[in-house]
């Protein structure tokens, strides 16, 4: 029993040290979403049935000012969501418009998804208001 506890304690110390070493070595750049087109491509990679809507020759949607999240409107009316997580992106096609809350520097989207319960979109006040109106008008 003592031997097993020693192994567990040693393993825990090794876990912390390895995670610290990973950080000290500077591994893992922070991902940013470069453009709405990139966001649309990420959603499409996630789900091939999703086609981003185009508006004025550009992918239609909203890209957060910090490049950490984007909401992409689909050609069929669905919504695509892309979020930066560490050095990778996570994408979703939302079955229904998310609940929206106003935050100090943008909007917080609340999703019915335990693996991605909320997403912060850093937006100007005007962009936040426009997006809230647009999402509110969706069926």
């Amino acid at each position, binding site marked *: 029993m003592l031997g*097993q506890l020693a*192994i*567990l304690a*040693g*393993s*825990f110390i*090794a*876990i912390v040290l*390895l*995670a610290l*070493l*990973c*950080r000290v*070595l*500077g*591994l*893992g750049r922070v991902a940013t979403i470069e453009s709405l087109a990139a966001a649309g491509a990420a959603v499409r*990679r*996630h*789900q*091939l*049935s999703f086609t981003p809507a185009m508006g004025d020759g550009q992918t239609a949607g909203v890209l957060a000012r910090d490049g950490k999240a984007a909401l992409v409107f689909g050609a069929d009316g669905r919504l695509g969501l892309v*979020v930066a*997580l*560490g*050095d*990778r992106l*996570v*994408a*979703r096609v939302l*079955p229904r418009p998310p609940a929206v809350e106003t935050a100090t520097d943008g909007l917080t989207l609340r999703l019915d*998804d*335990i*693996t*991605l*319960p909320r*997403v912060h979109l850093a937006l100007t006040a005007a962009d936040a208001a426009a997006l809230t109106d647009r999402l509110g008008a969706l069926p």
Partner: protein
Amino acid sequence: MPDLPDPVTLAIPAFVGLIVLEMLLVRATGRGAYEPRDTFTSLALGFGSTVSGLIFGGAVLALGVWLYRFRLFDIGWSWWAWGLCFVLDDFAYYWFHRTAHRVRWFWASHVIHHSSQHYNLSTALRQTWTGPISLAFVFRLPLFLAGFPPAMILFCGGLNLIYQFWIHTEMVDRLPRWFEAVMNTPSHHRVHHATNPRYLDANYAGVFIVWDRLFGSFVPERADEPCRYGIVRNLGTFNPFVAAFHEWIGIARDLAHARSWRERWGCVAGPPGWSPDGSRDTTEIIRARWQALGEPAE
């Protein structure tokens, strides 16, 4: 009956050393990738798996020892028994693993191992917490009934797990053709961890890739299509508890909303992604869409 050590416990220092070496190589070469929080989650899940093994392992072993009382043969400890046990254990692993990707009940436990978007040696330690709950051990029980000594079965299972550690890397490209033909390799296993439609649900092997070649589940890695790692619906968090339990919670929620026994059965025994209304994506749906587009490389 000899008192055999746990080979996995003995291998822990080597695991740690090789992870450090791989991190240094990633830093030096730019090949492969590590992310500190992802690494912490992988290692924390490995730690939790060890704790789970301490809690449930005794009961599983007791069941195996009990079954061994009804064994068909007295196989004993001869040298050929070791080789045969190792091969048959790997054969049992292949079918467990294939089932774990095709039946949601088993996937709920196994998804942990695939829940990282990275593919490095720390990913190898991203092991299940809920294997005993999903009854994954039943695939190994025939070995006890056949008459292999329980300690031999556990030792061979440990060696199988150790073998699978080193193949979780992007540092090794292709190995000699004869080796790639017979053994599971980093190249074959990268395909297994990939979510590209071409690569989904392939290469279930533990040690010997020949099982995939025999049973039609082998897909080679292509130079023109890099692997995109993770799961079809990647996690939006590094929380290890979410990684460990999210699919079980998904099953519970789907069962709560199921309107018939057919739907309940589908929620538990259907393939991952199955839904009564077809609103979610199984491998078959994803692959059909991809084929309709002319099978483009990503």
